């Protein structure tokens, strides 16, 4: 899994060390939660070398939030898979949110933090408008199929199709999610948007109904027939030139 991270700060006072602080935080998260790293804390837990009780406060937080999300999504979100834990579905949104908080605490007001297509933003872009976010075409990654105008919220897209990655249907373990290719969720912040995007994607076609029922969330789902289905107030975020 590769995860490119982009941080942009428009405030004039931003200096390179501010970016270093944000990236250092992501490195810390990666060292702790990467299931690909043998010496990460999560790998130690998976090898049963470390119990959850002995784990760090951040690890406990992640497990607590994962359990809460599992209950809120009727079991569709589950970090436990074949007796191993992969909390990346919750860690991603949580770490982007925290990284954005670092910038906020430094007093910056116009920025975004983007990691692997998930975004937390605040303030405005260089033209003084809300941030313009393009939704990528899952059939052609060089193409944008929707432009949103959003700020002070989180936008996450779930769109992994291969089991063994972080989205699979935990209630029907041998089934791949291939009916839908992409689900974008706009939520109050990136932590909320990301966890519900991941869970709703695992629900397949009915995932968009789940998003529809959540207050303060909007969603845009693209299926394999190149048809999009979107929630009632999604249009309010769409930019029409």
């Amino acid at each position, binding site marked *: *899994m*590769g*995860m*490119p*991270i*982009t941080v*942009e700060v*428009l405030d004039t006072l931003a200096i*390179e060390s501010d*970016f270093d602080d*944000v*990236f250092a935080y992501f*490195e810390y998260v*990666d060292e702790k939660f990467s299931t*690909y790293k*043998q*010496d990460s804390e999560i790998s130690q837990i998976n090898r049963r070398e470390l119990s959850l009780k002995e784990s760090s406060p951040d690890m406990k937080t992640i497990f607590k939030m994962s359990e809460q999300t599992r209950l809120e999504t009727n079991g569709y979100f589950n970090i436990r898979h074949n007796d191993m834990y992969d909390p990346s579905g919750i860690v991603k949104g949580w770490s982007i949110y925290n990284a954005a908080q670092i910038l906020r605490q430094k007093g910056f007001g116009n920025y*975004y933090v*983007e990691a*692997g*297509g998930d975004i937390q933003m605040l303030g405005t872009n*260089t033209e003084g408008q809300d941030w*313009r*976010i*393009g*939704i*990528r075409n*899952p*059939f*052609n*990654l060089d*193409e944008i*199929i*929707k*432009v*949103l105008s959003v700020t002070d919220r989180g936008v996450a897209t779930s*769109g*992994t*199709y*291969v089991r*063994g*990655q972080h989205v699979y249907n935990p209630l029907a373990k041998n*089934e*791949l999610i*291939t*009916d839908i290719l*992409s689900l*974008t969720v706009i939520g109050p912040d990136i932590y909320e948007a990301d966890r519900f995007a991941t869970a709703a994607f695992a629900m397949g*076609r009915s995932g*968009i*109904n789940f998003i529809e029922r959540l207050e303060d969330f909007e969603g845009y789902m693209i299926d*394999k027939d*190149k*048809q*999009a*289905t*979107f929630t*009632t107030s*999604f*249009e309010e975020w769409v930019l029409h030139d």
Partner: protein
Amino acid sequence: MSKNQSQRNIGATHMIKKFFLSSFVIFSFIAYVVHQRFSHPDLALSPTPTMTSIVSQKSFTVSSSNAPFTTSVHPTASILPTAVPTNPGQYKDGVYTGPQVDAYYGIVEVQVTVYNGQITNVQFLKYPNDRRTSVRINNIAMPYLQQEAIQAQSAHINIISGATFTSRGFAMSLNAALGSAKN
């Protein structure tokens, strides 16, 4: 009580300091404007604040523990990927197989079935677990939701939200399969 009062006093001193400071700033600005007006009458009266935008990108390669991190800082404007509108077009009926694409964690190969010009099935011939899976077509009506056919947009954007690296293998194989299905 006395603590509160002392805090209030500090606040008052601050207020006065702030007042003097802001008066000084306002006065300097007026003086500057007057000076500019008289010395450069052609200049427009809009002091443009230079909004410098810094984009910093870093790629995390979590699969290899010794991978070096690369950082690049571009002191220029935000990233503006250009979206090229393409015609989705019709597909010829048939079964098309995409090439085997390395999806980082293993090889992915996708097969697409086109019937009446529409994609009716997408199948993984190969994915890391090496098991075949079929796709169920599900047409549950969704009365509250709206639908539309996706369409390429060419508007100016700042950030992209979408399928990430992990899904590229799938997309590449699927695209290639659909490419050969094009009329």
